[in-house]
């Protein structure tokens, strides 16, 4: 049995003309790290909301199909039960600050207070989570005084500390520098190895290729392609459909046309490119 199971999921916001998600079928096994890519407006964020229960429990509109996580059906659950299993961090970190807390430490404890975790355990969990994402030194700062990248780390940590079975991340590194991005991918990879299932929307192809188990390419609310990162991220189908690709892929593709790239497969990361050009 798949851990996540989406059957014919179709959804239209109250104000959009057509469906934003169309007939999505998707199975993900437990502990798998899946990355979702797609152009602006493809429905990536909406898919995240659907996995996290906000579609259809929070956003009204027309929903059909079935979303199942860990054997439970979203349509038969309430949102407050659903979020205990599925954690969501979304694009804008600023709006994820609760606004009710004065320090990062308190901010991270907010979710644990809500679900009634005892005080001593709460402190231990917050400290562990901060160490995991490397923000221990921010504990006493006001969440509002942080940089965008730091706020994104806090947003991610505030979900990790809740220990969800499924982690849904919508562009969690959009305001981070390359080092921060790499660290976040590393943390997420480690969580997946410990059995947490991860669905992460990202644009940074090189990191996806290095860390994710599978890539799903979404376009106009439909799954255009899915498969192992190297297959999907180097496929011609992506370029034909206006997806961005890694600069190493496009360089090697150009080189291939001129006979300078002799391998069968195109590279996504720098290492693969170097390796290929050496030959």
């Amino acid at each position, binding site marked *: 049995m798949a851990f996540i199971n989406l059957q014919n999921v179709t959804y239209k916001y109250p104000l959009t003309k057509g469906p934003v998600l169309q007939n999505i079928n998707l199975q993900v096994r437990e502990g798998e790290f899946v990355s979702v890519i797609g152009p602006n407006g493809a429905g990536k964020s909406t898919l995240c909301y659907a996995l996290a229960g906000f579609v259809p429990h929070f956003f009204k509109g027309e929903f059909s199909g079935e979303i199942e996580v860990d054997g439970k059906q979203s349509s038969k659950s309430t949102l407050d039960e659903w979020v205990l299993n599925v954690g969501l*961090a979304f694009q804008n970190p600023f709006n994820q600050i609760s*606004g009710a807390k004065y320090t990062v430490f308190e901010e991270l404890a907010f979710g644990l207070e809500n679900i009634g975790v005892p005080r001593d355990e709460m402190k231990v969990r917050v400290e562990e989570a901060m160490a995991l994402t490397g923000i221990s030194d921010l504990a006493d700062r006001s969440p509002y005084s942080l940089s965008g990248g730091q706020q994104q780390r806090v947003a991610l940590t*505030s979900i990790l500390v809740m220990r969800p079975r499924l982690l849904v991340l919508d562009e969690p590194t959009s305001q981070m520098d390359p080092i921060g991005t790499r660290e976040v991918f590393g943390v997420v990879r480690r969580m997946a190895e410990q059995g947490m299932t991860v669905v992460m929307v990202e644009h940074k192809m090189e990191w996806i290729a290095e860390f994710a188990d599978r890539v799903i390419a979404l376009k106009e609310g439909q799954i255009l392609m899915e498969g192992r990162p190297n297959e999907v991220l180097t496929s011609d189908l992506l370029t034909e459909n206006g997806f961005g690709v890694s600069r190493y892929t496009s360089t090697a593709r150009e080189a291939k046309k001129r006979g300078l790239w002799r391998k069968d497969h195109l590279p996504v990361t720098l290492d693969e490119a170097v390796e290929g050009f050496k030959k």
Partner: protein
Amino acid sequence: MHERLSFHIQRDSFLHRLNPLTKLVLTLALILIAFTFPWYWTPHILVLIAIIPLSIVGKVFREFSLTALRLIIPAAGFLFLMQAFFQPIGEDVIFKFYFLDITSESLMFAFRNAMRVFVMVSAFTLFLVTTHPSELMSDLTRRGLPGQFAYVIISTLQILPQMQAKAQTIISAQRSRGLDTESSFFKRAGSLIPLIGPLVFGSLVEVEERAIAIEARGFTSRHVKTSLHEIPDSAFDQFLRWALLALIIVSIGLNLWPS
């Protein structure tokens, strides 16, 4: 940007260790007694025997005096002048200024009201400075205040400076595209209309996202909530609350007593 958005100053003092509700009752008691106790010199005496000693006990005397000098005394002073000049009571004119008379009655009246306002603002200041906002909210929710209600209060307290900062950003952005914010008042007022859109609609989208964010962190969970900070509530706290309540009742009672 503001690093600290609350007035709270962390110190280890008797006042800081009181239960937040006790401090709230103490604040209300000071204000109500200043306004209702039927003796002229009540607010003046309260400043001497309560406000100043409390600021010392709370180890915030320096910060408190600064706030008092910069903010509370000027405000109370302004009120004093307004009432001293414009209160048409009494016969005993002691000072004339064009058509304005100052009588000893209006002077006394204005003095007492200014002192009452001084007590009120000072009591609130001391309360905010010595009480951690999250602790106040946790304590009140624990006592049955709905969580949503507490959230609205505390997040509004935090978000006001944010809104202000954002309005500033939007003004700069629009000024750089030619928005006039420096000529005459009416022209400026008119040209500020474009500000309203981004601020209001931006805020609506933000409200929606923030609702999702706190919901994702179990805000509407039906579990009994816990609290990160341990909130003190000693037998002394309880005694103090009842004693203060009794004082409030006596003061209001004496005020209403037909004399």
